């Protein structure tokens, strides 16, 4: 499928009205033809959609700095292709990923800055009324590419505005990174298909690794990515949750949370000393140095290993994060989504740019080049070449499909953003696992903090 080809040369632009007309034609087809034919028609119609670009438009895009070295060149190649096709100059600015939000916050406050921000998690929900609604674009992409997974839908859609305000870009997904030789030596099969799939089996493996002198390592310091992701996973794996779906009732103080922390304490015994102070880069270094046998991370370790430590790359592999007693995946991954500030003079150009980078040719090129560092939010992209060509990348394919939003069981918004920014769940685990507080006291402390945050 080639959207580039679809638009190539003709520069045929169809307005939103024509897009709706095309959608209507698709709906009529649904009534008259069988589903497969309808889908073909709808996709064909949808491929022609583009937003009428404002005269003299130019765009400033703020996004996170690359984690893997092939990201930036490919992204800029896509941006340059957009400029060639539309004549719209695009300036891409990069910030360290944790600094994107402060910059976007300043832009939101003063009403000036980048037209598009490619940021993180629930940033759009911090300033929903400052953004351009993206419902037409999100529905178009969803319709064309097999639909959005559940978590992207929750991240992108604002119940307050009854519209999509963020366009999910994808998740730098995490998986269990492990050293095959160490897992084998511990008496387990290193084949990813046979890797422990439940938390009980996983604990047995970790204990066996530790017994062989190969500890595990999971960040418990203020690691925005690595610590938040695995602690939320563990909490949810046992059925615990910070807040109820009403976004008001704090539900952290439950037997399920106790079970999660008790399990965490046992897992902590298998970890290398020092994890309580680990920030995001620590586990990468420790894993590449062979200090730990197993950790949670994106594909960045493997990417570096392939280029600089081939012996480690050969010996490492990835597996899905295990499922807990709740019986379904409860993973949390970093999640990136784009949004357009309403102060932009070129909202259509901005939407067209986002559409462009999410179309098949560009998006496939980008994700394939990154070796799957970003897992797709649209179901269609499960067939990307990267998920087939390197089996070690395959587990990352399902990251978004297996994830829950960090606000679970509530919806993304200012309170969930604040709870994560303040590391409430990470702190609860850190205090209980290191023994600084009893399990009960750690939960009560977290409950008090959450109550204050959600009440504020």
């Amino acid at each position: 499928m080639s959207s580039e080809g679809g638009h190539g040369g003709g520069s045929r632009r169809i307005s939103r009205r024509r897009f709706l007309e095309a959608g209507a034609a698709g709906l009529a087809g649904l009534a008259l033809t069988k589903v497969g034919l309808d889908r073909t028609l709808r996709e064909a119609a949808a491929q022609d959609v583009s937003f009428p670009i404002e005269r003299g438009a130019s765009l400033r895009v703020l996004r996170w700095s690359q984690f893997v070295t092939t990201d930036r060149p490919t992204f800029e190649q896509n941006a340059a292709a957009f400029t060639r096709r539309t004549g719209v100059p695009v300036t891409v600015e990069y910030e360290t990923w944790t600094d994107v939000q402060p910059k976007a916050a300043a832009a939101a406050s003063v009403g000036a800055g980048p037209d598009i921000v490619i940021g993180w998690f629930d940033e759009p929900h911090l300033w929903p009324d400052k953004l351009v609604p993206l419902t037409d674009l999100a529905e178009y992409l969803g319709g064309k590419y097999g639909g959005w997974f559940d978590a992207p839908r929750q991240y992108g859609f604002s119940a307050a505005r009854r519209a999509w305000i963020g366009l999910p870009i994808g998740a730098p997904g995490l998986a269990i990174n492990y050293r095959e030789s160490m897992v084998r030596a511990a008496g387990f099969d290193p084949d990813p298909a046979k890797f422990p799939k439940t938390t009980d089996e996983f604990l047995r493996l970790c204990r066996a690794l530790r017994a062989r002198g190969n500890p595990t390592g999971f960040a418990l310091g203020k690691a925005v990515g690595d610590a938040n992701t695995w602690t939320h996973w563990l909490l949810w794996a046992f059925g615990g949750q910070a807040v109820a779906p009403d976004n008001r009732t704090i539900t952290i103080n439950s037997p399920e949370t106790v079970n999660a922390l008790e399990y965490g304490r046992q897992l902590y015994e298998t970890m290398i000393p020092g994890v309580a102070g680990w920030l995001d880069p620590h586990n990468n270094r420790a894993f590449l140095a062979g200090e730990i046998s197993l950790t949670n991370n994106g594909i960045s370790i493997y990417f570096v290993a392939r280029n600089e430590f081939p012996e480690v790359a050969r010996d490492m592999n990835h597996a899905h994060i295990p499922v807990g007693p709740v019986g379904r995946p409860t993973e949390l991954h970093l999640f990136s989504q784009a949004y357009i500030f309403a102060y932009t003079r070129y909202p259509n150009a901005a939407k067209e740019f986002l559409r462009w980078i999410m179309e098949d040719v560009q998006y496939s090129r980008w994700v394939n080049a990154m070796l799957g560092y970003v897992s797709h939010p649209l179901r269609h992209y499960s067939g990307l070449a990267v998920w087939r060509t390197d089996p070690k990348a395959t587990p990352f394919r399902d990251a978004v499909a297996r994830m829950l939003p960090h606000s679970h069981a509530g919806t993304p918004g200012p309170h969930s953003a604040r709870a994560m920014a303040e590391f409430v769940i990470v702190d609860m685990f850190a205090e209980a696992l290191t023994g600084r507080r009893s399990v009960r006291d750690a939960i009560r402390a977290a409950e008090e903090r959450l109550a204050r945050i959600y009440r504020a």
Partner: protein
Amino acid sequence: MARVEAAARRPLPRTLGSELLENRHVLGGLSVSPALLLLGVFLAYPFFLGAWLSLTDARIAHPGRFVGVENFAYLWGDQVFRLATFNTALYAGVAVVLKLVLGFSLALLVNREFRGKRFVRAAMLLPWIVPTSLSALVFYWIYDSQWSVITWMLRRVGLVEGFINYLGDPNLARASLIAANVWRGIPFFAIGLLAGLQTVSPTLYEAAEIDGAGAWQKFWAVTWPLLLPLTVVVTVFSTIMTVGDFQLVWIVTRGGPANATHLFGTLAYQRAIQGGYIGEGAAIAGFMLPVLIVCVLLAFHYLRRD
């Protein structure tokens, strides 16, 4: 000739502007106005804006409404804020005392005559002139639980087995950050006090020696009283900088483990910018005000006496 005299007697044309400029109150006001403008725009406005924000429920991109002292009351009951208050007091208290003692000792040491004196005095400034973010990154590596050079050396000489959990243990993390801050802050004291030492007349020491004073008595009877005003001023400025520290903590621990190293500055940033609650973040910064006001009053008092 007569024509010349007549011209000399003719009064100069007077405009309103020139008349105003001849008024010394107006001229004085005009002369200081650029400085006042700069102070107003870059100091007073941000200060009062911060004070106002601390009394509102402002969030990022939302101006908020006046809520009185609600933010302060909320923080008073907040366990993390209370911990940050303790951390800040401990961090500033211990670090400033250590910097004072070590900085004073260093100043006394380099105040002597010795070969390479100038080089040593210049080198002494290095920790101070290196950008904080850079030195913080160095300490980030020094305190790495697996890669620490300190641990490596101690293991090599057989004093330690395994790893040292510098940043994973709350008290060790606090001590590690204090040590880094002390390393960086010593030159500020040393150079400031060295300048003061150089102004002490040698005749005072000679007189003390004639009276039979030893080294310790010379220090207490001559050096210390003469340097006390300067010492207070340097200490006050250092306290202000230490209480408001941010970069070192943010780069090395981000306030962890479990908030054990959060200071007012890092917590305010986390709440205001990362969490989005500007009003609350401003209120956290506002809690620094009493400490800083006391410091400023002390500094004024001693500067005036000096």
